[in-house]
Structure formats: C-alpha cells, structure tokens
C-alpha cells in the first residue's frame, strides 16, 4: 500500500501557472464555518457507533424475524384448520383480518369458547395465541399513535438529548421524573451546547424501531435543537431539524428565526431533502440580533407548512422548545427568500 505524505507541491505546473498559483494560495484562505465542522465531525463519530455499512441490528434481523413470524402464524392457522370442526364460516375469515376492538374481542371470546371444548389438545403452543394476539395487534396501532403524541409533547420539553439514552432502550428515561420541564431553560449555555451535541449524534443513529423516531408530529417538520455562536449583531444559528422527508415532493424546505412581533430575522433555505439523514443540523447566519432579543426558531415543510415543534428564547437566556401558536406569523410563508429548487 503506498504511503504518501500530504503533498501540495506539483512538478507539472505550466510555466505561466507558477506565479499565479502562489498568489492564489496566498489569497485563498477561507474555510468551512465552525458549526458545520462540528456537525460533520459529530456525524463521522456517530457513524462509527453503528455496525459497518450502517445497518443496525434491528434492521439486519427485521427480515428473518418477519419471515419467522409469518411462518409461525401460518403453521398455527393451518393446524387450527386441521382440527375437527375448525372449518366453519364463522371461524375462517376473521382470523387474520385486522378488526375493530369490539369485534376482535367478540371473535377472541368465541375462539376461547371453542378452544375450551378442545382444551386437552392445547398442546400446540403456536395455535391458540394466533387469534387472540391478532386482535391486540389491530388495536395497538391507534393506541400507539395517541401515546406517541403525548410523548412528543413531553419529550420536546427535554429534547436537548439528556433523556435520549434511556428512551433508546424503550424504557422509562432514567431520572425523567426528577427533571423539571424548565430545566432546559435554566441550563447554562455551555451545558446546553453539550447536550445538543449529544442529541445530534445520538439521534442520527437511532434505529428505526426507536420510539424517539416517532416524535415528528404527523407530517410536520420540527426544530429539535438550537445553538448560537458569534457575537452581538452577528450570531450564527445552529439548528437541528427532524422532518418526515420523502423526497423533493415532501421535505423540510427551510428553517427560520422569527421575532415575537412576527418579523423574519433570518431564513435558511434548504437545497435538498434529507431522506435517510434524519435528524439533520444546519448552521446559518449572521443573524443581526442583540443578546436579549427573544425569537422563535421554527421549521417549514414544503407540503404542510409550519406547525411542528419550535424553540423560543434569546441568546442571553438560551432556547427551549415551546408550543408554537398555529397561526403565528403565517404570512411569512410567502416572504422571500423562498426555495427556488430542490436538488434531490
């Protein structure tokens, strides 16, 4: 394997190129913004936390487990059909079709009564649960949706990432009860920045099965972290956004900084969707604010507009997630700058 030292010298310069090259290198010193550096370095580190190729354990086992589950259910159904008297009109069709809770309960009850008649043959373990478990599965989806909404509101108030390690496991966040909802507001800016960094890194690699992924409220884009750099009159905002992007037809197309009076201070238009890159962090500025100016930071979805989680605060006091009034500064949706295109 060839080992090369970083080499900026070239021996194939054209005669007229040499002086110009020297002058260009003297004059060309710009580099990427510090916030962007931090975001990329965080992504690079976070990528190492996942297995090679970026495939999580859950994803790797999703297909085999799905096949196994289908096989178990299929065997269960077949075995039940082979039972004497199992093929009856009332017993065949509702077996695996998702049913409303009441119907499911009734079917489950009938199943239980029929099973009671042949209780002695309940030695086939996969068979009895096939139907009773189908009913809870059908009920589970709407119930989860409601729960998800509640969790969203709650977690948003703690979305600086402190609770994420616990929620990744799906258990109750350790210490969540002790943590007041105002802790984010009260935290000093250094701690908040640190927490945001953790949040960005952890959220980037949250497996698909993680409940945190479901924090997006419906089809809205939400701001999940806000940090600022810079000095009075020229602050750079580093904003984390989570959005249900599916491509250019449906994506978070900007985030913005808005005064409490509805004035648009700054808008960062996003040039492409972020499918498979959620959540993401973008830095932009300068925003000509004074340290005490209170502003909202919110995101916009190309299809559904505003309405997701937002942050509110000032550079001086820090930023915290707050419920955004539904119609707040809605007229800004037509105010430039607006997206001109979506690359992908």
């Amino acid at each position, binding site marked *: 394997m060839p080992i090369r030292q970083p080499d900026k010298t070239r021996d194939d310069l054209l005669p007229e*190129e040499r002086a*110009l090259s020297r002058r260009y290198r003297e004059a060309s010193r710009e580099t990427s913004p510090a916030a962007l550096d931090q975001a990329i370095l965080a992504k690079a580190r976070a990528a190492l936390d996942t297995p090679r190729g970026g495939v999580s354990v859950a994803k790797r086992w999703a297909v085999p487990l799905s096949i196994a589950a289908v096989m178990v259910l299929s065997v269960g159904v077949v075995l039940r059909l082979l039972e004497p008297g199992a093929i009856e009109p009332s017993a065949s069709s509702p077996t695996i079709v998702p049913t409303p809770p009441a119907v499911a309960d009734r079917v489950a009850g009938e199943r239980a009564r029929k099973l009671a008649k042949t209780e002695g043959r309940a030695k086939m373990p996969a068979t009895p649960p096939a139907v009773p478990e189908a009913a809870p599965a059908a009920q589970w989806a709407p119930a989860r949706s409601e729960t998800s909404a509640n969790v969203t509101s709650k977690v948003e108030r703690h979305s600086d990432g402190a609770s994420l390690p616990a929620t990744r496991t799906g258990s109750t966040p350790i210490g969540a009860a002790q943590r007041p909802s105002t802790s984010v507001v009260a935290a000093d800016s250094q701690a908040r920045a640190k927490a945001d960094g953790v949040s960005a890194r952890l959220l980037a690699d949250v497996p698909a099965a993680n409940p945190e992924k479901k924090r997006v409220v419906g089809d809205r884009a939400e701001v999940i972290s806000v940090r600022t750099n810079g000095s009075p009159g020229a602050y750079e905002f580093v904003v984390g956004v989570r959005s249900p992007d599916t491509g250019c037809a449906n994506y978070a197309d900007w985030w913005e900084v808005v005064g409490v009076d509805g004035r648009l201070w700054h808008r960062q238009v996003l040039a492409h969707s972020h499918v498979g890159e959620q959540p993401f962090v973008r830095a932009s500025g300068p925003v000509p604010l004074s340290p005490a100016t209170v502003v909202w930071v919110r995101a916009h979805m190309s299809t559904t507009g505003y309405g997701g989680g937002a942050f509110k605060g000032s550079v001086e006091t820090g930023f915290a997630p707050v419920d955004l009034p539904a119609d707040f500064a809605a007229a800004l949706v037509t105010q430039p700058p607006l997206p001109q295109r979506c690359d992908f």
Partner: protein
Amino acid sequence: MDDSASDEDLMLGYGAGDARAFEVLYARYKGPLYRYFVRMVRPTATAEELFQDVWMNLIRARSEYQVRAKFTTWLFRLAHNRLVDHYRRAAAALPLSYGDDNDEPLIESVPDEAFREPDGELERRRLGRRLVELLLELPDAQREVFLLREEGGLSLDEIAVMTGVSHEAAKSRLRYALAKLRRGLAPPARTNRRALDGS
C-alpha cells in the same frame, strides 16, 4: 493514528473505526473542499450543502474504501460528481459554459515581467481579492480545472479522467483560465503599452 500519517492510511483507519483519523483528514481537506464548492456554486448556503454531502458520502463509503489512487483524487472525484449532479438537478443540464471549449482564441500570454510582485501587503491583498473575483468570472469548466489544480493538487491527467475529457482539452481549459487571470491582474498601463507596441 499519527497526525503525519498519509491520507490513504487515515482513510483506512477511519474505515476501521478510528474517529481520530477522520478528524485529521477533515482538518487537512475541509479548506480546499470548501473553497472548491464556494467558488463553483452560489449561494454559499448551497455550496455548504454540497460540501457537507461530500463528507457524508465519504463517511458512508468508509468501509468500502480501497487505495486505488491518491486520496485527494478520490475526494475531489466525489466532489466533482456531486457538483455535476447538482447542476443537472438544478437546470436539467450542465451550465452552458461547462462544455465551453470553443472559447475565444487564446489570448496572448502576459509576460512574467508584467506580473510583478506587489508593493507592500496592502497591494498584495488587493491583488489577491482581484484574483478571486476574476476566478469567479471564468466559465465553469475553466474555473473547475483551475480549482482542481490549486485546491485538489491534481495533475492534468487526473483532471482529464475525472471530468471526462482528453488531456489536451483539460490543458486547454487550464491555459485559457490562466491567460484570463493573468490578463486581469496585469497592470493596465503596461498591457496597453505592449499592445500599442504590437508586441
């Protein structure tokens, strides 16, 4: 990993799970890559998006990386491909100037004596700013060749392969770029006098 390790070793190290290797690599090339995009794409926010995309592509490709060429060749190929992809998505075609090899006849090269060293730091800075302004006025293809040379340190052969043109075409683009930049930087009076002299 040692900070003095080669680019290729750093990339392999990162692919093997060494986060520090990426940090060193990023520190080396964030500036060149950033300037490449900032000079090729407007506005700056879009350039930063593309810049970030390239690094994300590199991160995703870490485990498949093999040393087949210089790391910088690979890195700037990622960048060039992303740039072309951006052009195509933005306008359904490359910029008109991208395939512009039929430029005006190669202007007479400004002699080195006209390209004198500036007097003092202030003049040096002014000329530096002027050089960047002139660079931004070049057709895209010529500007990119210049940037791949200066920021990527690539050879004309590498640039030719990367951009899908012959060695001579790449060299021609570079010569046009250099000639225009030198003409723009040369002191007007001296250039005019030489023109009047017919030299």
